[in-house]
């Protein structure tokens, strides 16, 4: 049995057009549908110099829906998907476990708690950007707690990090739930908390794009830059060290990068499960585990997946918007089971 892999060119040849198509569809479809031609004209106007495109068919209302409502939301969905998928790929490599997910070091639960605190204290109504700021701070604080619990004498064993991460995650989740139950009588706050815990991209704007985009881009680039070290860590810490990798420093870089990616994603979208687990896992089956190929390809896969899930969340059951986290888990769960079954089949054939 040889490693059957899709050439990366084929992968991008299929997934890039699919992603473009998904973007157009996600902007076009909605409670007020936009004609595909209108979407393409708006996009062309965005990309090409002024005067090249004839936008006489596009009404002012169309333009507002495209520019202020749908397009930023779709971009946020893509960024969140890419961020979570990249964080998941990093976690799976450093924990040497294909079932690791972005929230393993407490960053996800920390971000949720940060946001819950912002809701309960009423900061989120006074200054909307305090919500993502609190979420980001929560995720980094949680990571700091986990990291210092797991580190002795400058060395951080991954097993300790995992245990500290799991313990902290359940503690922080419990505090979030406690705050929710204390505020259950105040239905407005409670509703916001519940929605946050189920994830969603309703009313996301360009502010959210700018809040999350730079972190996702930066984190993605750092991960890509260190991808040879990530490959080596995946072989085991002793192997990496014997080949000249500064293991503890590299681990710190990756743990922090994954937490920033997770924090930035949860900060604008709430808790969205399964993307970070499924996207890198699926892409690894197609393209192989080498991280230089895997990281950008899973980012694209996560972005595509989340744009489609958000489209479904908006349109599946009008006029109610379903929660994004529910859709990702409903779609991601069966997908993941299918991948596992395929793996079993291959194992029995090998």
């Amino acid at each position, binding site marked *: 049995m040889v*490693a059957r892999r899709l050439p990366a060119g084929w992968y991008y040849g299929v997934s890039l057009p699919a992603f473009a198509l998904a973007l157009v569809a996600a902007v076009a479809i909605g409670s007020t549908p936009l004609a595909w031609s209108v979407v393409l004209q708006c996009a062309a106007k965005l990309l090409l110099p002024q005067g090249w495109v004839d936008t006489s068919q596009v009404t002012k209302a169309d333009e507002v829906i495209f520019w202020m409502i749908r397009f930023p939301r779709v971009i946020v969905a893509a960024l969140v998907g890419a961020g979570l998928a990249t964080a998941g790929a990093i976690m799976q490599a450093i924990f040497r476990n*294909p079932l690791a997910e972005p929230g393993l070091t407490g960053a996800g639960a920390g971000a949720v708690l940060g946001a819950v605190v912002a809701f309960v204290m009423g900061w989120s109504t006074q200054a909307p950007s305090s919500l993502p700021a609190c979420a980001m701070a929560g995720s980094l604080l949680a990571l700091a707690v986990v990291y210092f619990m797991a580190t002795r004498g400058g060395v951080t064993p991954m097993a300790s990090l995992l245990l500290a991460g799991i313990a902290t995650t359940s503690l922080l989740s419990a505090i979030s739930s406690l705050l929710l139950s204390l505020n259950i009588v105040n239905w407005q706050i409670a509703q916001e908390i519940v929605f946050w815990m189920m994830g969603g991209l309703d009313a996301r704007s360009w502010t959210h794009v700018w809040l999350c985009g730079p972190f996702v881009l930066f984190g993605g680039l750092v991960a890509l830059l260190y991808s040879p070290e990530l*490959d080596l860590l995946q072989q085991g810490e*002793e192997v990496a060290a014997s*080949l*000249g990798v500064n293991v503890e420093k590299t681990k710190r870089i990756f743990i922090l990068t994954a937490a920033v990616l997770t924090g930035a994603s949860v900060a604008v979208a709430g808790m969205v499960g399964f993307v970070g687990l499924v996207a890198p896992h699926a892409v690894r089956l197609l393209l192989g585990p080498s991280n230089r190929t895997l990281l950008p390809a899973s980012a694209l896969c996560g972005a595509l997946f989340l744009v489609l899930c958000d489209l479904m969340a908006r349109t599946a059951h009008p006029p109610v918007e379903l929660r994004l986290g529910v859709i990702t888990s409903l779609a991601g769960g069966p997908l993941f089971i299918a991948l596992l079954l395929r793996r079993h089949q291959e194992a029995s054939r090998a």
Partner: protein
Amino acid sequence: MSTLEARNISVTKTGRSILQQVTLCAHRSELLFVVGPNGSGKSTLLRALCGLWPVAHGQVLLDGSPVENLHRRLLATRVGYVPQNTWIDFAFSVREIVAMGRYPHRGRFAPETGADRKAIGEAIQQCDLSHLVERPVHTLSGGERQRVAIARSLAVEPDFLLLDEPTASLDIEHALQIFQLCRQLASAGRGVVLATHDLNLALRYADRIALLRDGELVKLGSPGEVLVPDVLEEVFRVKTEPVTTPCGVTVLAFQPLRRLL
């Protein structure tokens, strides 16, 4: 002549002393075996020799200069290390794994050079992996995986290669293959240091043997000097009888000192 030398080294781990004042020197073109009972410090000695484990006292010297002064990448290009457990649950191909051995030589974005390809190709050939290059490593047998791990260290093109119990989970055919490979590597000019529990194979393949007990070097010398009944009885607490077979191979037959009840 290149040397890798432990000069009077002691290693402690969480307050416990693992190695005490061990002095030995590995040379190129030599196959040096490290033997000793469980917990005698074999693995720690190898880790200290390749700079993975800090020494509390004494020094590890590569060609006479302390390894802690060398940059970790530079040290990695001179001293290769194959740890005991190299199991991995990801579908890297054999060639990808072996190519990772070039990491200390390569720039961050440098493409594979001719020298890289040559070193990878030679490592693959030496370890007899040519027919397996495209195979995902987690589908290989234990013996094949061990050869892949050795090939990865050979792709570094190190002067010294340290192997921690490379045959621990292998059947006798594959164990003999690994020892023969190490023998060839030493004949080709590398210094090979190998920790093992198999005293009979040590007797057969070693140029020199270092015998450890409780973190101390008990004896260092040729197999004929080290693997003698008196010494083995003291260190391993077994009775040893050398037997020479009709085809001229000497093997050691072991008996427990005391019968278990």
